């Protein structure tokens, strides 16, 4: 059962209008830009919430743009998975709205553009349209990376741009290949044609090219060399947003491609290899990282490697695990980044931080315990789902994946608690570590509260995630919803 919901365009349209209007307003009242931006985000969030409620009740929404039926025009397809990440994006953008000196016109416009691009990316059901929205997100994130206006920010943004553009061009070649083979761009249509057109090496090559494009934002191994530079140079709020949510969107889009267009196990193997390399690279590099910020950059690579591993397991269980891991990382990592923003410099210099800012240190401990996966915390249940999915369909690759993931967790626990022990070390020169103003700590504390709430309501959360995963893994049903609308 699905519904036609034209209003599904609002999450994209509202921020877009806001983005267009903001520069006009910003010229006269610079500080108003921040406020106006937040109002637009709130508006977008509330509409998305309303849409989500209707989708939760009445099933996935399909909306053909311009009234042109599915295979011809562009279609928006929103199921519960898409709405979940849409809401997460809205919350993250609101939570990490630029503050202080960065809140002039430029970054706010880019933030709204990012929100519009991200929403479009997650909702769109058309291959080229996904590319366009992906490009919007990419350009917005290049701009935001440079929004710190520091020398390092510009250099990092430029290198990020070049890497991203190369990825995008490869993706475009991939789309050209797919269009050459199938003649259509609609995902649902593709999922019907793919079994006999895209199963050969050409299909797999197309997927690899697509993944090369998406991989840049989704921080897959060979493509994420920009991560430490950009997260180090960009303002912490931007890094939190990029690492926390935007990378997940790219991963979910990759999931859409895998589920709908490339269900063969060639694509799953590619994701598996990328995931394994990601976890390895992330954990080992983080082990040798100098400052906290660098550690978390590598750690986010590792976590996304784990999400890729989860998605590489075909079937609903793998997707459920992937969603759980992605959602958990989206809550924990931004908080880590906000903490790392204040605790810059090598970890050694933070001895005795527990005396200066006990709240921040205890939050750090709770977040570390959850990301490692200690039972009462939601992180454990995410890993639990992954292991359950992995062992349900054991193959040689999956065994390696499980080993790498578990070994990665041990390394992760090692470097996180190496830092915790430094915090608790009785630094004789107390008061030397930077203190936290409440405003800086507020988003991190908010995310911590969300984590604890998730810990308490783990049962209903788990049920809804697995429901989402079943719905998202059924390619044939999706195609039927989109194509056989009978208009």
């Amino acid at each position, binding site marked *: 059962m699905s519904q036609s919901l034209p209003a599904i365009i609002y999450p994209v349209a509202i921020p877009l209008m806001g983005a267009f209007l903001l520069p006009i307003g910003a010229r006269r009242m610079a500080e108003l830009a921040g406020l106006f931006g937040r109002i637009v985000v709130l508006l977008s969030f509330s509409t998305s919430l309303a849409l989500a409620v209707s989708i939760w009740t009445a099933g996935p929404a399909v909306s053909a743009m311009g009234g042109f039926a599915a295979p011809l025009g562009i279609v928006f397809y929103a199921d519960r998975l898409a709405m979940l990440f849409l809401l997460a994006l809205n919350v993250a953008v609101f939570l990490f709205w630029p503050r202080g000196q960065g809140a002039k016109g430029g970054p706010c416009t880019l933030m709204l553009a990012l929100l519009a691009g991200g929403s479009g990316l997650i909702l769109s059901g058309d291959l*080229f349209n996904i590319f*366009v929205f992906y*490009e919007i997100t*990419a*350009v917005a994130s*290049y*701009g935001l990376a*440079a929004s710190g206006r*520091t*020398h*390092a920010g*510009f*250099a*990092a*943004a*430029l*290198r990020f*741009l*070049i890497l991203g*553009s*190369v990825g*995008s*061009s490869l993706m*475009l*070649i991939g*789309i*050209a290949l797919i*269009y*050459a083979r199938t*003649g259509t*761009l609609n995902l649902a249509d593709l999922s019907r044609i793919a079994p006999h057109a895209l199963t050969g090496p050409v299909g797999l090559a197309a997927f690899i090219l697509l993944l090369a494009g998406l991989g840049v934002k989704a921080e897959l191994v060979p493509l994420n060399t920009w991560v*430490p*530079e950009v997260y*180090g*140079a960009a303002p912490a709020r931007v890094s939190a947003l990029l690492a926390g949510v935007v990378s997940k969107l790219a991963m979910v889009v990759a999931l859409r491609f895998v589920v709908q267009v490339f269900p063969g196990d060639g694509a799953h193997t590619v994701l598996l290899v990328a995931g394994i390399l990601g976890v390895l690279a992330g954990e080992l590099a983080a082990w*040798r*990282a*100098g*400052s906290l910020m*660098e550690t978390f950059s590598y750690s986010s690579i590792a976590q996304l490697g784990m999400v890729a591993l989860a998605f590489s397991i075909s079937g609903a269980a793998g997707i459920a695990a992937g969603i759980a891991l992605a959602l958990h990382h989206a809550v924990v990592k931004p908080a880590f980044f906000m903490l790392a923003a204040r605790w*810059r*410099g*090598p970890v050694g210099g933070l001895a005795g931080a527990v005396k200066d800012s006990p709240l921040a240190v205890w939050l750090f401990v709770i977040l570390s315990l959850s990301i490692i996966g200690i039972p009462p915390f939601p992180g454990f249940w995410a890993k639990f789902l992954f292991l359950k999915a992995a062992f349900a369909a054991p193959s040689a690759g999956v065994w390696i994946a499980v080993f790498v993931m578990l070994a990665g967790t041990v390394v992760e626990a090692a470097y996180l608690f190496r830092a915790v022990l430094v915090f608790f070390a009785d630094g004789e020169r107390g008061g030397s570590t930077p203190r936290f103003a409440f405003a800086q700590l507020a988003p991190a504390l908010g995310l911590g509260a969300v984590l604890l709430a998730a810990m308490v309501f783990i049962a209903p959360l788990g049920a809804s995630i697995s429901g989402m995963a079943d719905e998202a893994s059924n390619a044939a049903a999706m195609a039927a919803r989109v194509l056989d609308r009978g208009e």
Partner: protein
Amino acid sequence: MTGTLLYGGAIGLVIIGLYAIVARRHLMRNIFGLAVMESGVNLLLASVGYRPGGHAPILVAGAAPGPLVDPIPQALVLTAIVIGFGVLALALALVVRVRQAYGTLDNRAVARRLRAENGEARS
């Protein structure tokens, strides 16, 4: 013959562009490489829609002059070109700022300065 020419040419452009990005250390050459690469990709995308003996997809007062070429790739190419342009403009702006900040456009030196500034202690 024209097919190999077109496809070969498009992919040649992509390769040249990539070579400029990958093998050269001067940032401006990298950005030019980017532009060349994107043009190559666009050419590839456009040439996918070719039909032997097809006419341009412009109707004359509603009537098609003959078998039409596939119009969709052309639409896609138009969008891709503008996207390429937007990214290029941003790249140029960033290059100007990097040039002012570091006084050089050698990406190796920029990378080293960037790492130093990011405060990554070489642990």
